């Protein structure tokens, strides 16, 4: 065939088209839906994603996920770094009740999920992994809903901090348990101990490097302007590539790096909401793309267990928040709102499951059906719950100037 400047059918469209359609569809759908129901934008994005995924049009499938992994990773890294910056470690040192509340709500959530799965005769190792993942609150959901409602106050601040902490616990615990699985599957106990240790220390190392690089660059650049925003993106891309090269998990390093930045430099660290337009694109995809992961088969096999898990996990987090809430300076009403606001699960849980699947394909599938179903419900309902909780705590500033 002779090279011709003219296109020849059939036309080949790559990933770009699918991403474009996903973005367009998500925004249009959200725009229309929100005229009728006052729910958070991200809830609409997640719904739009489900419609594009195997549950609906089949435009995206779970096999596609690795191709979009880079976008999801970057979105999460940006969010987790920002979340980290909002974690004031000095405060946690001053008010130990907040830490106690965090440990308790996570421990109760783990125990409740683990206990229920055992009672349902699930394999203990599988149950432990799911329980570890279920400790985490979706940082993406709580941050995006807080940003969208412009919430500010004690409940908002604690929701963000507790989400940061339990996300860290979830990542660390799931890696530790996977380490244990190494031992169990392969009989290699040295690796079982050393590998999680490597993952955790490695993440802290990269996080530390990120924090000091940020501090160094802040001397020259204002991160709230365009140039600074580009630098911040670049810094997190650099972090991601280092994490990838070293086979380290995505979540821990940016989170820890952010918290370290605030610890070594308590000045305000501010950048545009959603990191500007590029960030907004990434975050939209972060909520749309997980829709690709859930199939009818997952829902059918996971729904019963997932709903039971949702209840016990919600109860556990609520009890955890209520127990130490008043001692840490919240009213009962605020404590309840906080417990509710900790319910969302989303993309991060998906990534954790995918990581497990990569190492143990057979093992991951069973967990996947349950976690994906749980995640789907808790992304949709969880984001509405957060909105409701923050409103009832009187901390949203919607419709203001």
């Amino acid at each position, binding site marked *: 065939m002779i090279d011709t400047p003219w296109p020849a059918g059939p036309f080949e469209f790559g990933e770009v088209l699918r991403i474009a359609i996903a973005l367009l569809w998500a925004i249009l759908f959200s725009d229309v839906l929100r005229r009728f129901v006052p729910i958070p934008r991200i809830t609409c994005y997640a719904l739009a994603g489900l419609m594009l995924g195997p549950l609906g049009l089949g435009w995206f499938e779970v096999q596609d996920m690795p191709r979009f992994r880079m976008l999801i990773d970057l979105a999460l890294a940006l969010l987790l770094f920002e979340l980290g910056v*909002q974690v004031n470690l000095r*405060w946690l040192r001053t*008010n130990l009740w907040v830490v106690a509340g965090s440990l308790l709500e996570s421990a109760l959530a783990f125990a409740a999920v683990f206990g229920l799965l055992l009672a349902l005769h699930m394999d203990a190792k599988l149950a432990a992994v799911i329980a570890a993942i279920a400790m985490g609150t979706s940082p993406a959901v709580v941050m995006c809903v807080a940003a969208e409602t412009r919430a*500010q*106050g004690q409940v908002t601040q604690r929701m963000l901090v507790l989400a940061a902490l339990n996300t860290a616990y979830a990542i660390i615990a799931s890696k530790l348990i996977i380490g244990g699985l190494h031992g169990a599957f392969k009989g290699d106990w040295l690796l079982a101990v050393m590998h999680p240790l490597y993952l955790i220390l490695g993440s802290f190392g990269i996080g530390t490097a990120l924090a000091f690089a940020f501090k160094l660059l802040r001397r020259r650049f204002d991160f709230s302007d365009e140039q600074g925003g580009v630098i911040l993106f670049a810094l997190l891309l650099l972090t991601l590539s280092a994490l990838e090269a070293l086979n380290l998990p995505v979540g821990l390093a940016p989170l820890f790096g952010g918290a370290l930045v605030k610890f070594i430099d308590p000045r*305000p660290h501010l950048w545009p909401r959603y990191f500007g337009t590029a960030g907004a694109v990434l975050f939209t995809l972060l909520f749309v793309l997980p829709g690709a992961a859930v199939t009818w088969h997952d829902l059918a096999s996971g729904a019963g267990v997932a709903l039971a898990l949702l209840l016990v996990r919600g109860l556990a987090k609520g009890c955890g928040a209520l127990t130490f809430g008043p001692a840490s300076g919240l*009213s009962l009403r605020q404590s309840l709102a906080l417990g509710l606001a900790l319910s969302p699960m989303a993309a991060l849980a998906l990534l954790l499951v995918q990581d497990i699947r990569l190492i143990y394909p057979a093992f991951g599938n069973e967990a996947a059906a349950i976690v994906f179903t749980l995640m789907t419900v808790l992304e949709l309902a969880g984001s509405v719950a957060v909105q409701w909780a923050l409103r009832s705590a009187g*901390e949203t500033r919607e419709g203001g*100037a």
Partner: protein
Amino acid sequence: MGLGAFARSEALTLGVELELQLVNTHDYDLVSAAPDLLRFLSRRKLPWDIKPEITMSMIEIATGVCHRHADALSQLGEIRDALVAAADSLNIGICGGGTHGFQHWGERRIFESRRFGHLSDLYGYLAKQFTIFGQHVHIGCPDPDSALYLLHALSRFVPHFIALSASSPFVQGHDTGFHSARLNSVFAFPLSGRAPYVQTWDAFDAYFESMVKTGVVESMKDFYWDIRPKPEFGTVEVRVMDTPLTITQAARLAAFVQSVARYLLVERPFEPGESDYLVYTFNRFQACRFGGQGTYVDPESNAHRTLSEELDATFARIEPHAMALGADQACSELLRSLRTGEGDAALLRREFAETGSLPETVQRQCQRWRAA
């Protein structure tokens, strides 16, 4: 509610009230944390008065009755420490300053109480615009008539108080060019300004009664005057000062007001008159706008001089009284801070120039408040 009798108080005793800013520690914007902070503080029995103010990002502290500058300073220190500890537990920042540099008034929330709800209904957006932070100093008066003498005599020193305390150059994210922009927000209220020129308590009572009859006011609280009598306490309350950045400065200001009051009550150096008020708003404006560099028009001689010159002359006149009150050092440090350009407004401008960021300026305000 009537005016009531003028309570007995020991002459020249002192009480200090400070309205403070509550900010978050992330972007240092104001945060509606007053209910949280009050709830947290209510667990401990504190001897001090800590009260909500009209919007939820404000809190007001008050000392008990003090005799000397040193009492006021030590009481303010104890309240400050208790507040800072509570705020640390809640991850809130507390700071001084007459305005918050970049808050948006529209985002403020009215503190839920009957009185504040009523004020909000009455004044509309002015109530939210009233998120400004002042220092009030009460001076004990031996009897109501000398209270009214003091009130009117003190009016000549209002520019002094403003220039020495000014700490509100930034409003809604911009440098206003004023040293104290806070008072501009007070002027919007219909019952602000100055008290009517009456010299006896009976005449004042009659004025108050006729105002109540008009249905415009219910209590003395409805008058937003620069200086007003507080019959329940038996004091005259000077309300024109911005909240300074530190309690050190707040105590010095109180000592200065007390020394001027002693000078007036002991020496009775002049008889105030209605004509004093001809230049009152001009002088007041000059002090707000230009601080020490503003023009001061002497109400008696109509001579024009800079407020700095007037301040020097005033310090010389009140010095023996300051010494008698053990306030001479506090007063001279106050004057020095203005002369050397270390007044709070100048300080805030310098910090903004250094950091290029109002959030960071507010963060430094918080550090300054806890440190000194």
